[in-house]
């Protein structure tokens, strides 16, 4: 279970193949993956490795991806 980080992705983004591909590419610690149906999957066991690099946030339309620090 992730203790420190939660990532929230707007359902619209999560269904868009090109944005999903981008997210999978940019995250240095493999938090994003492509699910069976091509939709976005969050890799639960990697969440706490998040480096807070913001690359996922920059890769998508403003406000659609949120990285939440659970310790704040």
């Amino acid at each position, binding site marked *: 279970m992730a*203790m*420190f980080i939660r990532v929230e992705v707007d359902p619209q983004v999560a269904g868009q193949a090109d944005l999903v591909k981008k997210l999978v590419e940019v995250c240095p610690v493999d938090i994003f993956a492509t699910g069976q149906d091509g939709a976005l999957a969050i890799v639960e066991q990697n969440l706490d490795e998040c480096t807070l690099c913001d690359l996922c946030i920059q890769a998508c339309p403003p406000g659609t991806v949120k990285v939440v620090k659970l310790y*704040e």
Partner: protein
Amino acid sequence: MRFYEYEAKTLLRRYEVPLASFRVASTPEEAAATAGELGGTVVLKSQVLSGGRMKAGGVKFASSPQEARQAAAEILRLPISGQVPRSVLIEPKAPVAKEYYAGVIYNTLAKRPAIIFSDMGGIDIEEVAEQHPEHLTQATFSSLRPVSDYKMKEVVASLGITGNELTALTPILSRLARAFLAHGLTLAEINPLARLENGSFVCLDCHVDMDEDARDRQGALLQELGIGREETRQARPPTPFEIRGAQIDAQDTRGVAGRIVEFDGDLGLIIGAGGGSLTLFDAVRKYGGRAANYCEIGGNPSVSKACELTKLILSKPGVDKIAVMMNVVSNTRVDIVARGVIKGVVESGYDPAEKIAIFRIPGSWEGEGFKILRKYGVEYYDRSVSMDEAARRAVAKMQTV
């Protein structure tokens, strides 16, 4: 990484260093059979990684297969410096006229390989250096050019040696130097290098150490010698706890969280990096702390590595609390270590506020790290508390419980 004598001799044979025809036996029966085949008087030598075999009774002579069986049985039963012999090396006893010494090392200040030669072999070379310096000579040589015979000739001649001895010794030194450079060795030593009664030379005993960091490049040689990856050949074999630590460090390539050495105290240490760990371990001892382990974290390890390392240390019987301390960090991130350690404590079923005696890692991403530590109620300090003071406080906490 030290080689057994039979491994070292196998390597030197490839470089045409003159050797007696040696064999290896792992049972008294094999030893008896080998002695029979070689005929005459043979020498049997314990194959252990430590020196001082002669004194310890690990070298015996036998003039018949029966004697060889008996000698091998005794040698194989006899641990030397805590090490059980792997086998016995058997070779014909040589009629020695005179003993020499030849060795190759790195001169770390000149930053070059160096050849050392003495006409007083058979004793410890440090002793020769201290008591008979006039019998010892050395010279650095190039690591870029092929080894030059003339360099070795100059070294031998500098002790006043001439004639057949000079011309026979020169190529032996060159070959030793070539083996040294080609195989990433840090020591290649023949002692004694014997002149026999018939004037020929032979390597009676040798000692070869390979650079740990050359192992990847020397795969072919190591495979040929049957030296596996898992053989660390440290001064003492690793404990299961240390092996587990090495596995955690190897689980991913992000940073270091391992290099664990086991001690028997009650204060678990998660410390780093290289120099910081040494400094902090000294400090804990200075204030009377009893460390459960030495370790190193650094190079920005993953959260999961730090977490697994924490769990391992907490699982060690007798560990009461852990202290998490480093020097001011540059590339390791305070928040990442904080996450890993806290996660490890929680997953082990403890309260971080209670289990973590102290957290002192200032530097990169400290603001974010301190937020996490505050949230879990962990006692933490920034750079205004010195490493020594942090260690002192950690130890003091152990004594109040």
